[in-house]
């Protein structure tokens, strides 16, 4: 129920919750833990080649620039290698750990625990996104795990699947492109699809294949399916926009671009543009630009004393769901432009840190 409200009146709800959370925060003013010039901002993600990650990085860098800390901004890319993500974190913490804040896009859920432990050992600070292993929470004594910004991937999956089912009229065969199935988003989004399919028995899954979040893998798979099922394919469900766009190119090669509904997740600019052209049906945006910056904003506010340290936060402030937006033809134009710092400055202020929270995530 909260999510439906969130989708229809996002700004209002956000403001309400944010204020509710922040006011007591501001009242309790705290000591600065670091000199501003010492604060180091680290964004840790998979790679830059995918537009989603490119936006993550852009958001982080834009925030750093606004905060006057651009020279202290570090980008860590692990190229899909979980061990490397941890190793990169450890290596940079050889210096100045106590004033370093990490904003993490975990390569796989398993990486969260070791990274949190590293932060606890060294005194660094860490904000994680998306998902963590079950039973692990920031507020159980892990003071250096500042916050976990969760995305309800099952809700996201449900939302986008409903769009697809609606677009094909509630019956017909669809093909499914999974993400990396050892990640929470991939599993949960698919769970959302299954939940929607359970309510629409007229829709069948003709085939499913993991395509590694990658359009280059999705392309030949889609081509093979086109020649196998031909006109039997009424819709395409992809766990992220990059794969959806790969499938779209295969459709284009068969002259079917725009004629078969395709959905994805992420809300990257290219996908939004495709929606505008009618080639993609829907996507869901968690706003990569925001995700890439909010953890850093939290860190700066806390380290400069404008906000107390995390052990004094409420549980809802330590682990909450991030608001997401379903983008369809109706609102594509509104989201089509390049994200720019100006649109986000308000949300980076220390009293607005939780403006996009839709509620606790535990």
């Amino acid at each position: 129920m909260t999510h439906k409200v969130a989708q229809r009146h996002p700004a209002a709800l956000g403001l309400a919750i944010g204020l509710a959370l922040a006011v007591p925060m501001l009242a309790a003013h705290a000591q600065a833990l670091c000199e501003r010039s010492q604060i180091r901002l680290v964004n840790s993600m998979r790679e830059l080649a995918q537009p989603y990650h490119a936006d993550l990085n852009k958001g982080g860098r834009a925030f750093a620039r606004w905060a006057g800390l651009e020279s202290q901004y570090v980008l860590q890319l692990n190229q899909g290698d979980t061990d490397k993500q941890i190793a990169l974190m450890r290596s940079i913490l050889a210096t100045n750990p106590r004033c370093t804040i990490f904003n993490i896009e975990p390569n796989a859920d398993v990486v969260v625990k070791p990274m949190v432990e590293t932060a606890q050992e060294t005194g660094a600070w860490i904000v994680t996104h998306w998902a963590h292993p079950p039973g692990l929470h920031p507020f159980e004594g892990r003071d250096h795990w500042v916050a976990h910004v969760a995305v309800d991937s099952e809700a996201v999956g449900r939302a986008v699947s409903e769009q697809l089912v609606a677009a094909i009229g509630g019956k017909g065969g669809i093909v499914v492109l999974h993400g990396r199935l050892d990640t929470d988003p991939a599993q949960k989004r698919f769970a959302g699809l299954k939940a929607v399919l359970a309510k629409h028995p007229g829709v069948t899954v003709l085939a499913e294949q993991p395509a590694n979040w990658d359009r280059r893998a999705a392309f030949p798979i889609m081509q093979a399916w086109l020649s196998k099922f031909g006109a039997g394919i009424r819709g395409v469900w992809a766990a992220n926009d990059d794969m959806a766009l790969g499938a779209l190119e295969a459709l284009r090669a068969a002259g079917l671009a725009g004629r078969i509904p395709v959905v994805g997740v992420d809300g990257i600019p290219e996908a939004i543009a495709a929606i505008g052209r009618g080639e993609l049906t829907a996507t869901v945006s968690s706003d990569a630009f925001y995700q890439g910056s909010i953890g850093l904003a939290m860190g700066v506010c806390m380290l400069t004393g404008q906000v107390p340290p995390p052990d004094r936060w409420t549980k809802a402030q330590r682990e909450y769901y991030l608001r997401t937006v379903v983008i369809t033809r109706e609102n594509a134009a509104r989201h089509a432009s390049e994200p720019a710092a100006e649109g986000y400055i308000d949300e980076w202020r220390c009293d607005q840190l939780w403006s996009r929270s839709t509620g606790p995530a535990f």
Partner: protein
Amino acid sequence: MRTGVAMTVPGWMRTSGPLLALLVLVVGFGFGDARFVSLANLRTILDSAAVPLVLAVGMTFVIRQGSIDLSVEGMMAACSLVFALAVANDRTAFDLGWLALAIAAALGAVFGLANGLVVTRLRVPSFMATLGLGSVGLGAAMLLSSDQPPLIRDAALRQWALGRTIGLPNLALAAAACLGAGLVVERYTRLGRYGFAIGGAEDVARRAGIDVDFHKVAVFAFAGLTSGLAAALESARLGIGHVEVGAGQMLGAVTAVIIGGTSLAGGSGSVLGSAIGVLALAVVANGLVYVGATPHLQKTIEGAIILVAALLAGVHLHDRLRVVK
């Protein structure tokens, strides 16, 4: 003089073996699902084989002369970015169209030239030299891609890359042209023929007065050219300049070359054999999707194919005392 060969592969198996294997695969998958052998799917297979074939042509020459080129992925990344930035795209103002294809190929050739010079002048084994230069290419590609991979907006080019002529995918036709060129060079030019000599018995070639270094560099440059061309074609098809455009391609190219009968030891083989190898791998990849196998199973099967191919290809070299590293 052979020593202690446990099993011998009859001559006919080595020459027509790959072709037979390909036929068996097609028939096998066809039994699994009749739609596999439909015209549409065969076209799909040809399309997916196009870019690997272009790579395999170049790789055949390199392996035949006794070297290896591990820089394919990095080279493709750099050439893909340059190509995408040179055609009409969303980041730069260039709009060079077909010329960009030539530029990508030329850049690849320059890269290959560098490979060849490091191997012949600095005497670094090709394994290491190409690995290093490949990383350089990858780094350059990342720099060019920076925060935003360029999206290709040249509609005519994209239409061509995704389209067909006389019923066959355009990319497949381009690859076939590349194959033809490779055949001509291999059969009718000094560069091609001397490659056999250099790979088969380099000291004999040297003593005969052949400028071995020059020919080695030329072959590396040729392989670089094919990598650049392959990168451009793949980018045109996907519509994006991507640092990962070459990921996994090198192993596929080497596997195809070996399946096709070119020995890793050098001195033998043909681009035609490599083409069959490429088709075989494409058939397997497509067929596995058809029967619904997961990518993990696909990887396992591809790995098994590589092992079997290497085994069959090298069985005539089984010498009890040969040191295998």
